[in-house]
């Protein structure tokens, strides 16, 4: 907060430099590809690897945001993205142009369709929050999972609104057919991803963003400070819904079509896996996780180990790779790098000057940074022994 204004130290400057470098590389990426690859491959790396990673990264970002700043791992994010995608299709298409006899359709241009989709995804996120945020632990996971599965069956079986099993096709975004102009499409995805990332970074230092972290750390104290905690939980879901919606809008423009397969359980799990690979506590991990996921998914079938081809067992290879990542880096790959770096730093600084008592007691949370979200303290540890939690929902 005030820290932001007063603490523009060398470290902060360095930390600001890193993202800028990252964004510069991402801007150059599609321009360099034609120098390395054939035109076909350059397009593939621009769209199927580059844009697709950004799109998946944005939905994973929504999950990481909610988990890191709100302490809530929602399994409904892929469904909220899919919901936005469906809304884009419904707003964009005319009933006559759908193959399946959907009776709703408005024929709006892409951008207004997207705006409606984002508004509705935000509201849908809030609704999920209103339903799910009263529970916690395994029940919270089960509720969000139930919402995800329920939505899959709704779109699968509803023909009037969602086009049933077949869904909708021929949905074009503002840049037109992605293949026709891959670089424009890529930059649109990049712009949205950067907007989402920086927007959330800004948000978490605002009044609202701070309330999310405070509710995560200690909802009881938040109530005692005058906050209506349930509304703040709903707000974080709404924002998570909006960010997931961004991904859904880009996704439907990327694929050009939408069908129930885009909101089935495996997509939910994909998002979770991406977030876990990248690191649930690190927003930038969403994009790192997405790139690794996409590359593994694409190339696992081309891998040969000692002459044994994985082409028909590519899932085995993907699975093995993920298991290794989860085992080696329980806080995700970004967590691995971050903690490794901090560990080194701590060792260096402690050899120079003895840590104060406060720092010694601090542990990792002492390094509250803009990048890594300090792990929430398990509220069980701080529960007032005199409280049953009655009325604490």
């Amino acid at each position, binding site marked *: 907060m005030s820290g932001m204004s007063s603490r523009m130290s060398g470290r902060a400057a360095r930390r600001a430099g890193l993202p800028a470098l990252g964004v510069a590389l991402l801007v150059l990426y599609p321009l360099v590809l034609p120098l390395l690859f054939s035109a076909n*491959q350059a397009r593939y790396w621009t769209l*199927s690897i580059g844009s697709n990673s950004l799109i998946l990264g944005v939905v994973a970002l929504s999950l990481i945001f909610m988990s890191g700043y709100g*302490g809530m791992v929602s399994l409904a994010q892929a469904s909220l993205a899919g919901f936005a995608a469906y809304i884009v299709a419904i707003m964009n298409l005319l009933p006559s142009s759908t193959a399946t006899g959907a009776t709703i359709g408005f024929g709006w241009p892409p951008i207004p369709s997207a705006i409606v989709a984002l508004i509705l995804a935000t509201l849908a996120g809030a609704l999920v929050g209103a339903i799910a945020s009263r529970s916690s632990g395994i029940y919270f996971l089960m509720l969000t999972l139930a919402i995800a599965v329920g939505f899959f069956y709704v779109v699968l*079986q509803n023909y009037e609104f969602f086009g049933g099993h077949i869904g909708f096709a021929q949905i074009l975004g503002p840049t037109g057919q992605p293949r026709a102009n891959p670089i424009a499409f890529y930059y649109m995805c990049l712009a949205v991803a950067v907007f989402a990332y920086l927007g959330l970074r800004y948000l978490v230092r605002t009044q609202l963003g701070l309330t999310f972290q405070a509710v995560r750390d200690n909802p009881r104290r938040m109530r005692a400070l005058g906050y209506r905690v349930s509304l703040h939980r709903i707000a974080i879901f709404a924002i998570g819904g909006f960010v997931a919606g961004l991904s859904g809008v880009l996704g439907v423009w990327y694929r050009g079509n939408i069908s129930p397969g885009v909101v089935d359980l495996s997509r939910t799990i994909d998002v979770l896996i991406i977030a876990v690979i990248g690191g649930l506590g690190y927003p930038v991990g969403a994009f790192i996780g997405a790139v690794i996921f996409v590359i593994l998914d694409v190339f696992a079938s081309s891998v040969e180990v000692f002459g044994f081809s994985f082409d028909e067992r590519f899932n085995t290879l993907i699975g093995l790779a993920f298991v290794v990542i989860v085992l080696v880096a329980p806080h995700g790959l970004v967590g691995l790098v971050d903690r490794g770096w901090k560990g080194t730093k701590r060792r260096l600084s402690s050899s120079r000057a003895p840590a104060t008592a406060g720092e010694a007691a601090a542990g990792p949370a002492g390094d509250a940074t803009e990048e890594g979200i300090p792990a929430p303290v398990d509220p069980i540890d701080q529960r007032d022994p005199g409280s049953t939690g009655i009325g604490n929902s």
Partner: protein
Amino acid sequence: MTFATTKKLAVLIAATAILAAACSSGNATTAPASQAPADSAAPAESMAAATCSGKTIKLGGLATLEGPFAVPGQEGFRGIEQALNDYAKVEGKEGWWLGDCEITLTKEGSDATPAVALEKAKKLIEQDDVDILIGPLSGDEGLAMKDYAKQVPDKTFVNGSSAAQDTTFRDPAPNFFRFSTDGAQWQAGLGKYAFDDKGYKKVALVAEDYSFPYTQVGGFMYEFCEAGGKVVQKNWVPLGTKDYSAVVSNLPTDVDAIYVALGGADAVNFFTQYQAAGGKAKFIGGSITVDQSVLATEGAFADSLVGTITASPTSDTATEPAWLEYVKNYKAQFPDGLPYPGLFALSYYNETVGVLKGLEAVNGDLSGDQKAFMEALAKVTFDGPTGPVSLDSNRQAISSNYVSEIQKGADGKLAAVVISKVDNIPQTLGLPADSPYLAQPVSRDFPDCP
């Protein structure tokens, strides 16, 4: 509130999902090495005589290796490989050849959703730069593939076993070819046989709710409704439905038969629950409803299937020499395959044979954005394992179909016994081009003859 616990659980769930993914292909049989010994199957015809040289022809194979169609996906790849083994083997050489041009195969697996099928197709076409893509396996994937094919006019797309009607019937892609018949053609002869020979006048139907069963139901109803039969009730259930109690109790009792277009486990579940509920009706089966995988379960419902009529482009009990040769080669090349190659293997096989014939006709020359090759491909005809195969003006196969009836053999096992076989079945099943049945795409509500 213990959201920290939620987070730990989430990581746990992700890890579990990962493990599940790792194991999901565990029961799949390993693909035979592409260098199956050439002498294990005498090539039907070698293409070594073609005067191709100095190039590599890259084929991409796309089938389903995850989800409900994982086993059919294995079959699909066997079909591609068998065609290559049968037609593109050269004595004393590893690999597959057209003249001196090597033919390579890159495989990708989808999970039967159009989104994933498209991603894998893009990978094969754009990243791996294959010349010809063979696939996909299921109906909705095929519809998506046709749309994608239009965006890539300089590559050739050849179907796998996907059998939705509109993949080729309406708004076709000029570079999409289908040497396998569609789901309606797979029902050719069944509606007539049911009405004329079995005397069924009134039926109700239970089918999965997506494009392939729509096409199957359409093919059946074209003939059945045209003959004067009535389909008094349609029950569409989601793919993968396990509980049929609502459907079963809803079925009318005053029908002559129930038309069932469900596949694999869905069919087994339905038949079991129908029988348990005391249902007595006769059945008419879709092409994958009473195939080996269902008959072999030998569930309590087995006896109730005797007398079920069905239609399909393959028959385990066919006796033509070409079929027997094909089955012999299949068994030799894939010792761990199914007892008989099913329609997925046959479809992919015929597609691949078509591709090889087309390549042979142009001596492997794919230059000029493959225009010459595509022209030649559209004219390919050959005698496949079940009969002659040719393409119509939409590049859709005209080929053979069997009507069969489930009977109990001397060994007590159920088998589909061929009643009749018809060659050269067009996509319209012989309806005139202006027939009202062809005026609309098949769907849940069309055709209709209540």
